[in-house]
């Protein structure tokens, strides 16, 4: 098989009309990964109730794939338990999007990382309380 050229239809749908865009005021958990120097920053905000992710939102500075994976990972996390959400990997995100070009796999990495960071942040806060 030749390597994937360009983005899948699914990626383009999520990119053109991303789900779960925006910030949450006073989130229960907040994760931020990436670096503007590298051309990507991803923020994920979560609201948690009874160990379940009730609301999740994102803001992203990045390429098309970064925006699409943010949209997808937030869709995937919504309604999941924290444990289930922690188990989402970058490959899961890419698979749900019908694949990503090899050079763009790190963007799905970012999305999974940002989600995990938000969950870690929430858990850290819980411990303190």
């Amino acid at each position, binding site marked *: 098989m030749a390597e994937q050229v360009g983005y899948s239809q699914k990626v383009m749908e999520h990119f053109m009309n991303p789900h779960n865009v925006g910030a949450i005021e006073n989130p229960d958990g907040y994760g931020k990964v990436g670096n503007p120097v590298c051309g990507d920053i991803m923020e994920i905000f979560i609201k948690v109730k009874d160990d379940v992710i009730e609301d999740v939102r994102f*803001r992203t500075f990045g390429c098309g794939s970064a925006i699409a994976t943010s949209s997808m990972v937030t869709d995937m996390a919504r309604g999941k338990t924290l444990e289930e959400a922690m188990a989402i990997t970058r490959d899961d995100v890419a698979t749900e999007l019908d694949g990503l070009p090899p050079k763009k796999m790190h963007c799905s990495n970012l999305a999974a990382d940002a989600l995990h960071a938000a969950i870690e942040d929430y858990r850290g806060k819980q411990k303190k309380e």
Partner: protein
Amino acid sequence: MERKRTVYMDHAATTPVRPEVVEAMNPYFSERFGNPSSLYALAREAKEAIEEAREAVAAAIGATPEEIYFTSGGTEADNWAIKGAALRGKGDHIVTSAIEHHAVLHTCEVLEKQGYRVTYLPVDEFGRVEPATVEEAITEKTVLVSVMAANNEIGTIQPVRAIAEVARDHKVPFHTDAVQAIGAFPVDVDEMGADLLALSAHKFGGPKGVGALYVRRGTRIGTFMDGGAQERGRRAGTENVPGIVGLGRAIELAVAGMPQSAPRLAAMRDRLIRGVLDEIPDTRLNGHPTERLPNNVNVAFRYIEGESILLMLDALGIAASTGSACTSASLEPSHVLTSCGLPPEHAHGSLRLTLGHRNTEDDVDYVLEVLPGIIERLRAISPLRGEA
């Protein structure tokens, strides 16, 4: 937003081959297909076609036909000029600029690994090389000065003549990558003071995979492509006859059409630039305000990333670029923009629109109509805007 038209605004990446050029090439695939090195009538036809193209290229840049060598494109012409000069020069130092095309930069980097030293001249905020820096950089060991005629990303035109004079004063050969200059402004090797000059057909209505290197009579350079005796023994390989014919025809058309096309493109360019800067906040023009290719628009949008702009434009039928097409597979911010002092996050948010033959005022209108909305949508999901 819905797609209303198809607009190609990436002519710095490549151009469609002009119909007249395709027509000129056509007979050389299956009819006049002879190998120009052979002796029979069929081969002579091919040979004559090549020599006609050579005359056309020479005439377009003020050279003589014997100074023109056909190559597989701009990249090969740059590789040959630089590696060839290094091979024959009596020294181990090269002077070039920080904003060259990768065909020059990566060639220099490869030579560095082989023990050469390379000075990468800085540029000002508009992307211009200061000729005085060339004077400072040249040493007894310098075998080549290579500075591009015009930059492919930001369109900045270099003060090539002044740079060439410095090189000549030191008896160092001067190479210029004129890949973006041909058809955009008059190029004359004598006026420019170029000893070596690279050009590529697909940037001015010719086919991909063919270009030329001008080598001023008496300039000592080694060979790059070794083998058969083609191109008077200096560039081996069966000649790409249809491609060379296409290059010849394309350069004729491009140069003959320049008095009309350059002002037409420049007017559209200026309307685009003004429209974007006026309509969209937190935006700046990259490159030089006046010393600029007539078809180049390059703007930085704060808070957002270039690829996502491209994708939205593409969905609306507009083909554009963030920088040179060659680096679009890379995740690095453009070396040209960072050399001009742009912080990386602004460099990441830059958009290049390059106009051409087929573009019309309606295309400009359409871009100006959809671009503000795209930028706004992307900024709405950016985490950076809030911070500013």
